[in-house]
């Protein structure tokens, strides 16, 4: 067994210095310090305290030979208060950076009787005290009680040395904390800047800003944004989930100091929040861009919080957030203008044609701020009607102008009874004559008069994806029409294709934005999946089919402009009447049978009340449609 060596005071002091330069807190070496002082001759007890400028004693420890080191023993903070009040009068000399006082325990008893009693219980008869500065304006106090005055001088010297250690450690820790706060603030700014720069979703971005700031830089945060002349609360965060709910509620109910939008309210000020959220202070900064107040960012803090962001930091973060909001708002406005202009290039109303259903879908490119050149239309003609779809190359004002020219040139000729291929040739000549530097693609379907075989159609393409026929049984047929694009060659030679739509058949015209949509693996919608998708959707109402397609059927990302025009031939309408529910079913059944369909019954059941019923089709396909109020449903037979 080896004998345990009691460290000498120089050994201990050396260890304290080393600890002081490695510690993140003076708490780390507090125990060694107290036990070291207890080892000095005649020392019976050691009291240490940290004193706020207000006189409050937030930290107090006691150490003696019987009980070791104890933090905050009951009553000790109160016992030491009289000493704190009297101590300036007790100082007799300086020892290094410490103010030293020497008293007997009897003298202490005169103004701090409880403290004196603790010292007596530990065996002390005299007291040596050292007061010294500590971080953040606090004062440090060490009281050492001894059983003989003989040891007092040694203790006074030691306390002077300890004060040097504690002050150096405090200063270093405070410097490190300041550096940490600055590094953290820089890191928050960097992360927030990245987030702000890559998102145009203002609200989600601002939520992320408050989330990133809590709890690293503040215990709570909130952001309000100016909308319709009011400041609207977008987000609030608190380090404590339960208190976050309370904070949100208090802010909404106005139970706080309110947004400080007047300019310079940056320094911590009372938040006036109810005590249940524990956030007594706040700093706020106005979000301002191009001289307009966009909102207010507020950070909340506990009283005595270790970290409160600097004025520069709060202003910096507010300026960056304001710029991001401004950019996103400008983008939204421009985007709305593009969408509006794009829709102006499309027909607002499609003609109502007997025996035919028409539906359209249009997707405006998700991220672009220029008008695209996709267009479509349906033109009534003396002997039928023509559906057309086109795509001008490029984007922007020039593409929009050519879109208008193309659509109106072709439509005017068609309306006057001209043939589609003549209209396209005329447009081609016009473009070449005017030296238009862009080209376009176009496809048309001209429908004739329905006959016993169905609705005749002639498809024409000028460099455009050919129409696709969706048969009533789900069969898919691409039209065989071919032809060159418009605006490049002097002479255009077309190979039109004739087909017939039977009742229940549909045909789709679309632009390349649809077929070039990609799935997560990078495959194009048009490669192999478009035809099976059309077959799977063929029984849907046309508007639903159109909207499903321009949304990529939920599987393909349609990033570019994409237009679809769907036409379904429904055949002769053999019934269109409004009847009580039971009679409506009987009438529909009779009408279907009149088409030559041997049907026993309908599967539809109707609630009592009047219902409008229509029946369309032929001997092989029939559709019974019911309408009540805004509701429509059908049965295909």
């Amino acid at each position, binding site marked *: 067994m080896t004998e345990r060596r009691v460290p000498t005071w120089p050994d201990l002091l050396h260890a304290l210095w080393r600890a002081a330069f490695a510690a993140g*807190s003076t708490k780390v070496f507090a125990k060694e310090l107290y036990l070291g002082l207890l080892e000095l001759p005649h020392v019976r007890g050691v009291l240490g305290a940290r004193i706020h400028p207000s006189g409050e004693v937030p930290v107090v420890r006691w150490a003696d030979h019987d009980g070791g080191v*104890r*933090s905050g023993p009951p009553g000790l903070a109160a016992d030491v208060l009289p000493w704190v009040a009297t101590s300036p009068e007790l100082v007799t000399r300086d020892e290094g950076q410490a103010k030293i006082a020497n008293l007997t325990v009897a003298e202490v008893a005169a103004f701090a009787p409880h403290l004196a009693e603790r010292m007596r219980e530990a065996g002390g008869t005299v007291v040596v005290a050292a007061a010294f500065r500590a971080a953040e304006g606090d004062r440090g106090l060490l009281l050492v009680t001894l059983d003989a005055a003989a040891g007092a001088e040694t203790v006074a010297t030691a306390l002077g040395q300890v004060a040097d250690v504690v002050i150096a450690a405090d200063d270093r820790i405070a410097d490190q904390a300041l550096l*940490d706060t600055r590094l953290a603030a820089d*890191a928050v700014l960097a*992360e927030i800047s990245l987030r702000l720069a890559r998102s145009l979703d203002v609200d989600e971005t601002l939520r992320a800003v408050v989330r990133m700031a809590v709890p690293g830089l503040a215990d709570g945060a909130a952001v309000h944004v100016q909308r319709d002349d009011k400041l609207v609360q977008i987000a609030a965060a608190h380090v404590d989930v*339960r208190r976050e709910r309370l904070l949100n509620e208090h802010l909404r109910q106005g139970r706080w100091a309110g947004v400080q939008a007047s300019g310079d309210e940056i320094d911590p000020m009372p938040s006036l929040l109810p005590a249940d959220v524990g956030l007594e202070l706040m700093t706020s900064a106005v979000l301002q861009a191009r001289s307009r107040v966009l909102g207010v960012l507020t950070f909340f803090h506990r009283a005595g919080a270790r970290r409160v962001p600097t004025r520069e930091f709060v202003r910096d973060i507010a300026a960056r957030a304001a710029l991001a909001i401004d950019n996103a708002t400008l983008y939204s406005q421009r985007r709305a203008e593009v969408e509006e202009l794009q829709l102006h290039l499309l027909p607002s109303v499609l003609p109502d044609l007997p025996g035919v259903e028409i539906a359209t879908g249009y997707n405006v490119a998700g991220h672009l701020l220029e008008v695209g050149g996709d267009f479509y239309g349906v033109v009534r003609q003396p002997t039928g009607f023509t559906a057309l779809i086109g795509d001008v190359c490029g984007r922007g004002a020039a593409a929009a102008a050519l879109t208008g020219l193309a659509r109106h040139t072709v439509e005017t000729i068609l309306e006057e009874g001209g043939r589609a291929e003549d209209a396209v040739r005329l447009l081609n000549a016009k473009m070449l004559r005017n030296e238009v530097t862009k080209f376009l693609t176009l496809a048309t379907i001209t429908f004739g008069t329905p006959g016993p075989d169905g609705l005749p159609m002639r498809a024409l393409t000028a460099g455009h994806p050919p129409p696709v026929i969706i048969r009533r049984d789900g069969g898919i047929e691409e039209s065989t029409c071919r032809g060159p694009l418009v605006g490049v060659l002097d002479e255009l030679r077309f190979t039109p294709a004739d087909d017939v739509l039977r009742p229940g058949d549909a045909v789709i015209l679309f632009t390349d934005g649809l077929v070039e949509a990609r799935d997560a693996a990078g495959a194009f919608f048009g490669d192999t999946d478009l035809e099976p998708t059309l077959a799977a959707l063929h029984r849907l109402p046309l508007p639903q089919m159109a909207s499903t397609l321009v949304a990529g059927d939920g599987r393909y990302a349609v990033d570019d402009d994409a237009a679809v025009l769907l036409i379904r031939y429904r055949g002769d309408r053999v019934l269109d009447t409004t009847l009580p529910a039971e009679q409506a079913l009987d009438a529909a059944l009779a009408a279907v049978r009149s088409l030559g369909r041997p049907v026993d019954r309908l599967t539809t059941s109707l609630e009592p009340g009047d219902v409008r019923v229509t029946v369309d089709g032929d001997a092989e396909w029939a559709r019974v449609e019911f309408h009540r109020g805004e509701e429509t449903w059908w049965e295909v037979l």
Partner: protein
Amino acid sequence: MTAGEEQLVLVVEDSDEDREAIQRALSRSHPELVLEFLPDGDRVADRLRDGTRSFPALVLLDLNMPGVDGYRVLADLRADPDPRLKDVIVVVFTSSTTSADIDRCYEAGADSYVYKPVNFTLFRTVLQGAVDYWHTNDFVRPSADS
């Protein structure tokens, strides 16, 4: 919890780097805390039920872990019949700041939701901020009227 009682923080984190970062961050700011690490979510409940070992004052829980993820761990704790497991303070940390993820955590019963940044200085700061908050409150949820 009294001043002299050992305060244990159980850290559930699958990443070696993050475990080391947490150790470095908290040993510096809160040297009085004892840290214990679990590398996955599977063993959390068994560890907390182990009466032979100290019960943690706080659980730091990574959300994104292979196997049993943080959401599952959190939901299981909150549904546990043992009131100590049900009520233990849980601070979750994750790299997500999306509202949906935060709402999901809140619904699962998190006490704090801490954003885990890539930057170590910031990571240390947010971690210290969260632990400091609960340490200041003696690892007890403040009552509504406090």
